């Protein structure tokens, strides 16, 4: 019998849904093996259809997107109940992704920025969407972004923003065989095309931002540009570093490392080791945006309750 599969999006961008189509011709083989019972992006099954299913009816649910509204949370719980295996698919579901950066701010600050203090929005009546009484109900915007694991039990996670095709194919094969062990255990540097130029000891006076400096093709850290490679899980093959842009960390931390930002900061600490205070300060100041640099994809995991102020 064909395995029953569901794909759902919480607060995400749809890139994960597109990435499933991104296995291209192999999608036809996959469709021979599985039956899609719920996938709002590509099929017409509705919430009621899911509610009607017996508990455990779905073999594998792939949940992409983070938990930002009460609706995201309700559907995550509904799908958990209806599924044997629950997979966090992609960076939003596993790490919170860039929208986790919203946890640096209060919910009301966000609503005000969008609806009240916005130069193209006159909004004289000062309306903030909250629904229209009994007539139209909007799901509540939760105080903070959460990962899927912070809401329901997760059986396996597929990293990446979105998961690159080789990572996804390996994960799909494993999951369809009933295995939860997949993915690489090493850092991106291990498979980076610039690997041979990474020095044992990095010596710099300051960090440069990638728009400020011509790339000479060698290890970005050696050039003084922050590259998240040492703290990021391998699997993409170095797509960004091959294209002239440092890694920004979308694959999340290496397995067994919980905090990707701390892992990267400790790599940086080794650079400033034994430096005099003035030089050290110059390097730290040249980082500019600590949260957005080291926690671009994992702020939700770091700040599950939100409301953290970046004092850097």
């Amino acid at each position, binding site marked *: 019998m064909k395995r029953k599969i569901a794909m759902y999006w919480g*607060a*995400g*961008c*749809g890139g*994960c*849904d597109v990435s499933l*189509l*991104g296995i291209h*011709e192999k999608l*036809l083989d996959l469709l021979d093996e599985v039956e899609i019972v719920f996938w*709002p*992006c*590509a*099929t*017409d*099954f*509705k*919430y009621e*259809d899911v509610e009607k299913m017996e508990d455990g009816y779905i073999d594998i649910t792939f949940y992409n997107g983070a938990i*930002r*509204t009460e*609706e*995201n949370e309700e559907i995550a719980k509904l799908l958990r109940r209806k599924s044997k295996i629950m997979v966090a698919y992609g960076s939003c579901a596993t790490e919170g*992704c860039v*929208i986790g*950066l919203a946890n*640096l*701010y209060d919910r009301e600050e*966000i609503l005000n*920025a*969008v*609806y009240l203090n*916005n130069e*193209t*929005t006159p*909004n004289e009546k000062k*309306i*903030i969407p909250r629904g229209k009484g009994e*007539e139209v109900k909007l*799901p509540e*915007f939760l105080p903070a972004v959460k990962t899927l694991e912070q809401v329901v039990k997760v059986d396996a996670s597929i990293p990446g923003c*979105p998961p*690159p*095709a080789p990572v996804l194919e390996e994960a799909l094969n494993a999951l369809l065989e009933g295995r939860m062990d997949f993915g690489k255990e090493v850092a991106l540097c291990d498979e980076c095309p610039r690997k041979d130029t990474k020095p044992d000891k990095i010596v710099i006076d300051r960090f440069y*931002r*990638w*728009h*400020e400096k011509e790339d000479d093709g060698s290890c970005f850290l050696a050039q003084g540009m922050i590259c998240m490679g040492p703290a990021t899980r391998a699997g993409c093959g170095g*797509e*960004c570093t*091959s*294209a*002239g*842009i440092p890694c*920004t960390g979308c694959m999340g931390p290496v397995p067994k490392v919980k905090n990707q930002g701390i892992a990267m900061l400790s790599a940086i600490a080794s650079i400033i080791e034994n430096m005099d205070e003035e030089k050290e300060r110059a390097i730290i100041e040249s980082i*500019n*945006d600590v*949260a*957005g640099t080291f926690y*671009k994809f994992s702020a939700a995991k770091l700040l599950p309750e939100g409301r953290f102020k970046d004092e850097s």
Partner: protein
Amino acid sequence: MKVSIDPITRLEGHGRIDIFLDEKGNVEKAYTEVPELRGFEMFCRGRKAEDMPIITARICGVCPEAHHMAAAKALDMAFNAPPPETAKKIRELLYNAYIFYDHALHLYYLGGIDVLMGDVPKEERNVVGLIKKFGIEVGKGVIKHRRYAMEIVKMLGGREIHPVTAIPGGVSKPVSEEERAEIIKKAESCIEFAKKSIEIFKGVFETKRWNEMLGLDTLKTYYMGVVDSKNRVNYYDGDVRVVSPEGKEVYKIKPEGILDYIEEHVEEWSYVKFPYLKEIGWKGLVDGKDSGIYRVGPLGRVNVADGMNTMLANKEFKEFRKNGVVHETFGYYHARLMELLNAAERMHELANDDAIVGGDIRTMPSEPGEGVGVVEAARGVLIHHYKLDDKGLIENVNLIVATTNNNAAINMSVANAARKVIKGGKVDDIILNKVESAFRCYDPCLACASHALGETPIIANIYWKGKLYRRLKKDA
């Protein structure tokens, strides 16, 4: 009585439609709500400017190239670093590959199913049903050509989804001769695929069923789109042109001036705002010359332009526009098909241009300031506006995205279609799908629209005299 469709499906993002029926069971009003918000305007503050093309790509994984480019163009301006010719052409080539694969997605996986499959039950209304009906060869052609276009995006942008190479002042990676040769080959094949697609859809355009679809909704609105110096459609760069419902040019605006012409209205029942032409004003959800509501996307672009910039697509344009501007909402499909062909032809043209393999790919940035970036996302005009502080960090961000521009029109189209097809309280899966087919014309991307907040799906609850009377199943 209220009928809800939850979630609305075969689109990008969350949405819900609530339809209210009067005592006789006819449609009184309908709302298309977007119950999702993510807050990009807020959390982009304080970020490094050069991160914006990477962060804002995550507004939408279906059209990341659009946000990536709008961000890069806003930064070109903010850093006063106009990209060299080669960089501009590489960006435009990548951009046309994106328009191609995104339109192919809509035509064969999302909205196009309504046109190609007709009134079939929901189990068949998807790409698997489409392959069963049209054969595996059509399915393979779709998959192959979307792959070709995405491979071109990866070659130029570094990644298939969420590209990274557009930086302030240019791009981070040149194009090699080998890559160029491969792009030319793939573009040739894409042109043939687009021609074939037009043939397949035209098979439907000649049927009675198509006339019924065209009759579901007509809106006489203003239209907005980016045009080149000869007033032809251009997705990557140009001035913004606005035409009246009669097809007369009302404005032609430099991208940096666009925000002086638009304002956004807020309703309590949707997280997504309602933009309108400032000078004409917000008159509520009505069309016509006195209402500031405008439409964008394929129909908007084709209605504001005097032609297409490639030969075969221009032929289609002449046929489509022979009686002036087109107001039927299902006209979006023909417009989208001609753009599919145009994007393939333009890829071919740009790859054949020797400048594409040039070595001068970036201008180094100068002092940070303020910048506006405007592009045509597949779904319409997309505007990024940034203010940078003296360290080049983001101080303020305003984003007006394609689907948001169409928010008012989508609401009207859904209400009109509902009025046409729901009579005497009779509702079933096929009827509700006709209502949904009206919003799918726009290929809405509610992830984009809800960059600020969140997303909504579509369900059907029936409210009778103010109370939940029955929860309607779409397959009832």
